[in-house]
């Protein structure tokens, strides 16, 4: 067997040392920067795998396997293992998109779903894209009511209102849904982006009348503008964006700009400054507060005393984040009176393009376009333009998702059942490994061969679990891991049988090469049969199985088989 000296000689090989140092660096990186844990782990594995394949040395092969096992164990300890709701309990709703989308659109969809879920108080909802045509919504509690809520959230549409000078100029129902679209760069003049849409003839008359003579006025575009509400803002929030851009302004002027955006005949939203409200003696002028109906939009930074006082007055509190509470101003170079508000998420004001003079002259064609400038230069500018156009498109569509969706089947797993599933599965995997070891012991009658086979299979399972667990191990993934125990041992059997052959004069090395040629062909074909399921199907239900099968094969070819070959070659030389 391997002597002590040989072991020391092997370990002091510079390449082995390099791998060991690299592994330690990765481990340190994972430990020091937990947010980079998974990328560090993946990167480490890839580098070690390629180094092992490149150096083609027996010591390196075994060292490579050991390094990867250490990395995996540390990752499992440091980054943790994530399990799907099948094992942790909860509800999952797959959302199928009508057509595949590009990644910015996918991000947008995920963002919209997250925002809407949060609006309904579902904060623990996990929304994750799967491939390019599916999204998973997962909630870590099982409750049919909740599923109903999510379905409502996803199918509900926001209400769009375009307000000019306190009058509704256009509303979402007036816009013909199929006509909302991006303008090509050729048709938007000097602007960076443009979105066009058509409204109904009847609505167009109303629009033309409302905006007549109001050239350059902002068209305040709201999505779900709250009605019957007041806003309480603190000074820091009010001035936040002005300070950032270095604009000096009095509170009175700032409030005047804000108030202009809040005008609407019959449903104005009054705004109050928190510092000026006396919790003990609040006065809201002639505002009639309808108990349980009149909303007070406050920041989550608002003091508890004031919040309680508002509640006592009969307001329903609607809390927004500090960021949502900060108005975004548009400072005009044509004088103070032209200043306006561009965005204020707290009240659903999402954009405020200015009316171009042509549309304010009376009845015009019912097709309109909104154009605008983007920030940055070069590619960044293009990306920003794209983002702005998407946003406006989405607002006009009532915040609807950019692509039509079908809700998939909701699956729910009670938590105790999930925990039991996990326990049983781990035992099942252990039994599979033991049973295969016994079978190999019967077949080959020699412990010196079986030990490396079993140890390497075990190593492969550890690595596989650590990699899959960095993302999510679901039922299909777990099935794939157990299957991998059986399939991964196959290649070791091919190697062993080749080496055990008696009627040949070839060296062990030569025979190993032959065995590898079979194994590599096998793995190539097996991966090729599975890859379309992984890449082109978007069938999340079974992608875990494909992933673990393919990963198992790759790990085998790059790491565990070379290591086993190196060990077996040694064993047979003696």
């Amino acid at each position: 067997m391997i002597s002590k000296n040989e072991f020391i000689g092997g370990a002091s090989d510079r390449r082995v040392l390099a791998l060991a140092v690299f592994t330690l660096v990765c481990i340190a990186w994972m430990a020091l920067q937990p947010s980079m844990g998974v990328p560090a782990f993946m990167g480490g594995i890839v580098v070690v795998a390629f180094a092992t394949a490149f150096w083609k040395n027996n010591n390196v092969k075994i060292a490579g396997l050991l390094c990867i096992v250490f990395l995996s164990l540390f990752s499992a300890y440091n980054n943790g293992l994530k399990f799907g709701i099948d094992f942790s309990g909860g509800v999952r709703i797959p959302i199928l998109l009508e057509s595949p989308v590009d990644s910015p659109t996918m991000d947008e969809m995920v963002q919209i779903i997250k925002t809407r879920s949060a609006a309904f108080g579902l904060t623990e909802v996990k929304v994750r894209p799967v491939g390019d045509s599916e999204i998973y919504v997962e909630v870590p509690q099982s409750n049919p009511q909740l599923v109903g809520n999510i379905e409502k959230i996803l199918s509900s549409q926001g209400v769009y209102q375009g307000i000019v000078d306190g009058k509704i100029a256009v509303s979402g129902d007036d816009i013909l849904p199929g006509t909302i679209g991006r303008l090509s760069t050729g048709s938007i003049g000097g602007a960076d982006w443009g979105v066009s849409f058509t409204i109904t003839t009847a609505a167009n008359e109303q629009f033309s009348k409302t905006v007549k003579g109001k050239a350059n006025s902002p068209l305040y575009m709201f999505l779900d503008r709250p009605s019957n509400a007041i806003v309480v803002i603190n000074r820091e929030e009010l001035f936040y964006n002005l300070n950032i851009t270095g604009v000096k302004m009095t509170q009175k002027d700032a409030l005047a700009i804000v108030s202009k955006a809040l005008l609407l005949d019959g449903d104005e939203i009054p705004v109050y400054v928190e510092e000026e409200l006396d919790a003990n003696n609040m006065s809201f002028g002639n505002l009639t507060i309808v108990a349980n109906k009149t909303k007070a939009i406050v920041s989550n930074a608002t003091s508890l005393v004031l919040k309680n006082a508002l509640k006592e007055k009969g307001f329903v509190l609607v809390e927004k984040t500090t960021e949502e509470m900060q108005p975004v101003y548009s400072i005009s170079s044509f004088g103070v009176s032209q200043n306006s508000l561009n965005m204020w998420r707290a009240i659903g004001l999402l954009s405020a393009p200015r009316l171009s003079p042509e549309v304010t002259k009376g009845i015009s064609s019912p097709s309109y376009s909104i154009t605008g400038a983007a920030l940055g230069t070069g590619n960044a500018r293009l990306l920003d333009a794209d983002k702005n156009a998407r946003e406006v498109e989405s607002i006009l569509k009532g915040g609807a998702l950019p692509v039509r969706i079908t809700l998939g089947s909701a699956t729910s797993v009670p938590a105790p059942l999930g925990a039991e599933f996990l326990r049983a599965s781990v035992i099942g995997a252990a039994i599979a490994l033991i049973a295969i070891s016994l079978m190999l012991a019967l077949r080959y009658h020699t412990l010196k061969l079986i030990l490396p086979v079993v140890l390497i299979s075990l190593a492969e399972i550890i690595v596989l679990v650590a990699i899959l667990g960095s993302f999510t191990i679901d039922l299909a993934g777990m099935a794939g891991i157990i299957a991998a125990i059986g399939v991964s041992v196959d290649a070791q059997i091919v190697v062993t049988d080749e080496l055990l052959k008696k009627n040949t004069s070839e060296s062990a090395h030569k025979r190993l090469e032959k065995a590898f040629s079979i194994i590599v062909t096998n793995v190539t074909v097996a991966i090729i049969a599975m890859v379309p399921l992984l890449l082109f199907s978007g069938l999340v239900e079974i992608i875990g199985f494909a992933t673990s099968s393919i990963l198992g094969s790759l790990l085998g070819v790059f790491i565990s088989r070379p290591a086993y070959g190196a060990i077996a070659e040694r064993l047979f030389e003696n």
Partner: protein
Amino acid sequence: MFQIPNPYAGNYRLLAIPPIVLLIAALFFIPQIHLGVEFKGGTLITIATNQESVDEASAVSALRGQGIEVSSFKVYKSPAAAYKNIVEIEVARSTSQINADRLRAEFFANVDEVSKLQAQYQADGEDEGRYLQEAAKLDKTADEVFALTGSRLRASETGNINVLRREVAASLAEFNEKQKATLLGSVSSVVKYDEISVEEISASLSSKFIEKVGGVVLISASLVIIVVFLIYRTLVPSIAVLLGAGTDILIALGAMGLFGIPLTLASFAALLMLVGFALDTSILLTMRVIKRKEGTAAERAFDATKTGFTMGLAAIVAFSSLYVLSYVTHIGVYYEISAVALCGLVADMFATWGINAVIVLDYAKKKEKDGRMQEEKPIFTGIFSN
């Protein structure tokens, strides 16, 4: 070790008989495969209950009495101590649900188009005929939706395409919820539940699944065929390998029909894995017999068989563990994957070592006679070899 006589030494062609018999039997059973709920649509209700016992026969007849089309009803002991029993009920989609699915698809496929036509007509008065015709068709679909869902609305009353769209979506959603509530009401009158999960597969979803699975089969099959031909670059071994794998899959499908293993997404994944496995053993055999020189072709085939059987057994052991696990936990995914894999692995022993071996041996003997054996030339081994 076991002293088994080499079956390839004598009249090896007889070895093809068992797989061919199995293949013919499989062709008979394949049409009997039943589709899982993912592919045929329907509702799968899983209930965790603390009820001591659930009487299957009376429960099913009670549900059917309430007009619910129960396609399967299973009761088993809960693997977790928190519950006593787990009940799985599969319900076929009702005619009205199928209609709702169809109308939804129809309406939403046309609504944007109609609004575009409206805009165009408004702008220049063109295409009036087509616009009115399409709009009328859309209204008709919407009215069918309203009629089906019991809404008193009429499309002509909405006057605005956005309102119409919203109303249609709302009444379909309401209809769905009502149907589900009725179903759950009926179920709870039969079994008292502590936890319930309802998995609903609409017609559009199941057809999407079928479409995707079909796509994967097509791409996988073409890729595998191309790669196999690339590896061998000769006709006979390539065909032998593909034939072996094809036979394996067909026998596995036949076994699914015979043993009542449903075709679901999970069993489909298992079939894909089987393709890989079947090819593995076929490639092992073909490489050893055709591209090697030691001993006779029959001896090499026998050697390959020994390795192949050991491989198959290892995989069978792993999937048996999964199969036993599926019995303990009643996890459908485990059952479908392991059952299909086990059938396929057994079938592979017949297919590879019967059909594939016979063709390859014939080919090798002919080549040996011609004295034109090719040297082994690895293709993908460049960076991996020692």
